[in-house]
């Protein structure tokens, strides 16, 4: 189960809506205890995909390294990656799966016509062959 607190959630939705119609991406920082994850900070990161960004994203490893350092300095963990699917369902596509990493929760935000619509979280496996859906709780308001 991954729970996102109001502040980081607002950051994520805003980043996704502002990046529309392109895909956005970013890192989620927080705390883990067993299967329970709580996201307390969200860090918007640049989409480094070279080419049409409406349907693709790529994270710069350097940015991820920075996010990991930021987490350490705040006494938090880098626990997840978020990205958006503009005008598309929040599912875990083959592209998402084949470029995933099993160390993190992957939250996908569906942005329909520029507005947040719904979101899902996925846990990809080591072999990048499947991703299980993870219970996602975000502030409803």
């Amino acid at each position, binding site marked *: 189960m991954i729970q996102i607190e109001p502040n980081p959630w607002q950051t994520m939705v805003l980043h996704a809506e502002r990046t529309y119609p392109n895909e956005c991406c970013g890192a989620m920082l927080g705390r883990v205890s067993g299967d329970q994850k709580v996201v307390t900070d969200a860090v918007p990161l640049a989409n480094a995909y070279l080419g049409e960004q409406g349907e693709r994203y790529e994270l710069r490893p*350097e940015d991820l390294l920075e996010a990991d350092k930021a987490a350490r300095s705040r006494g938090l*963990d880098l626990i997840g990656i978020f990205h958006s699917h503009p005008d*598309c369902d929040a*599912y875990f596509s083959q592209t998402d799966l084949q470029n995933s990493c099993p160390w993190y929760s992957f939250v996908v935000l569906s942005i329909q016509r520029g507005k947040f619509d719904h979101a899902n979280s996925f846990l990809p496996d*080591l072999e990048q062959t499947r991703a299980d*859906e993870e219970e996602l709780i975000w502030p409803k308001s």
Partner: protein
Amino acid sequence: MAKILIPTALRQFTEEKDAVDVNGGTVAEALTQLTAQYPNIKKNLFNDQGRLRSFVNVYVNDEDIRYLDKDATKLEGTETISIVPSIAGGAIGVAEPAAVSLSNEEIARYSRHLLLPEVGMEGQLKLKQAKVALIGAGGLGAPLGLYLAAAGIGRIGVVDFDVVDSSNLQRQVIHGTSDIGRKKLDSAADRMRDINPNVRIDKFDTGLTSENALEILKDYDIVVDGTDNFPTRYLVNDACVLLKKPNVYGSIFRFEGQATVFAYEDGPCYRCLYPEPPPPGLVPSCAEGGVLGILPGAIGVIQATETVKLILGVGETLKGRLLLYDALNMRFRELKLRRDRNCPVCGDHPTVTKLIDYQEFCGIRPTPPQAAAPIGDVIDVTEVKQKLDRGDSFVLIDVREPYEYQIARIPGAKLIPLGELPKRLSELDRDADTVMHCRSGARSQKAVDLLKQNGFKHVRNMTGGILAWSDKVDPSVPKY
């Protein structure tokens, strides 16, 4: 000693240490030391062949070892080594069609399909790779959405701008009572996702227009028409012909339905069957004429069947055959259809080569109702109520049908159905203060026009009809 920084996610394998000191002359040796010390971390970094996993990047200080000497990169012992995953993704999978396969969950879910030789694994994979556009999430869209999702269509685009109303629930079974007031798009997508989470649903919160139709439909293999009006039907048809995509057609009226497949291979299109739209108002919509709630179920399921057959490439489709269904007498009939060589869209020498203004084509003027009814010719429901209460001398005429009168009426109104009005004018006084009303105000406006043409001087239309009466005057009068 070089230092390996451990990503937070992997610290569970390093006794929560965020850095591990290692000796070793190369990156490979350093990593071997790390995995020797903490064996559980190994499978996260290396695959079964002992190679670094594709998503693992190793940095020495600020340099990616891919641009140095890979894992033979030499270490002096003062470096900081970072393990950073490479992460990317995207809504559209470039490798998706090739990579398609069924998970164990899907194999269990579709087992009754897989048992059919006509479907089988090959057919089910075709369904998974198929992209179907569904125009409308209403009467026909409801069974279509349910069954296409359940069948495992990989991607379904739903186009609808409407909101669920209680009068929809008698037939639009994809929506429930708790969905009243929600967007049909949201309500339908939730239900479809619940039936089959493997389906990707693209939501288009808009009406289909000449401006957006080609853009929306171009990404889909098949278009299924679940619309309820002529302009959109011609628009869907023409867009399908222009994009060379089959149009799975269905329509319903009262107890009768039709279905066929247009614009498929050498078959006809909708315009070959109906070159011209009917005059506006001649064919009532379901909202005006009523419809048996089950009827769209039957027709929508026929459309879903044809869609699945087109994808699988099995059986005989309805191409060139218009299937007519009469629910009241429970009969199916068929009409043969041929492509018209002179069809303006799909004929040998088409004259319609891009999308046109379909409202205009169907004779629907975009003029707002206020312009059609000059001020002074209309009266508000509250004013009618005041006149009734004061006992004013005036005539209130209800131009609806008798069966509508049985559902709801305004006390004191005289019933003269619009169709009977021309021959019953003698019952009315040309000089009397006269107010006409119907359900929503459309038919009574025609009645006002008719009376004025016949020399009535003081005749007005009650705006909003009995629906407005229920909203503003007497909520106990039911809306239908």
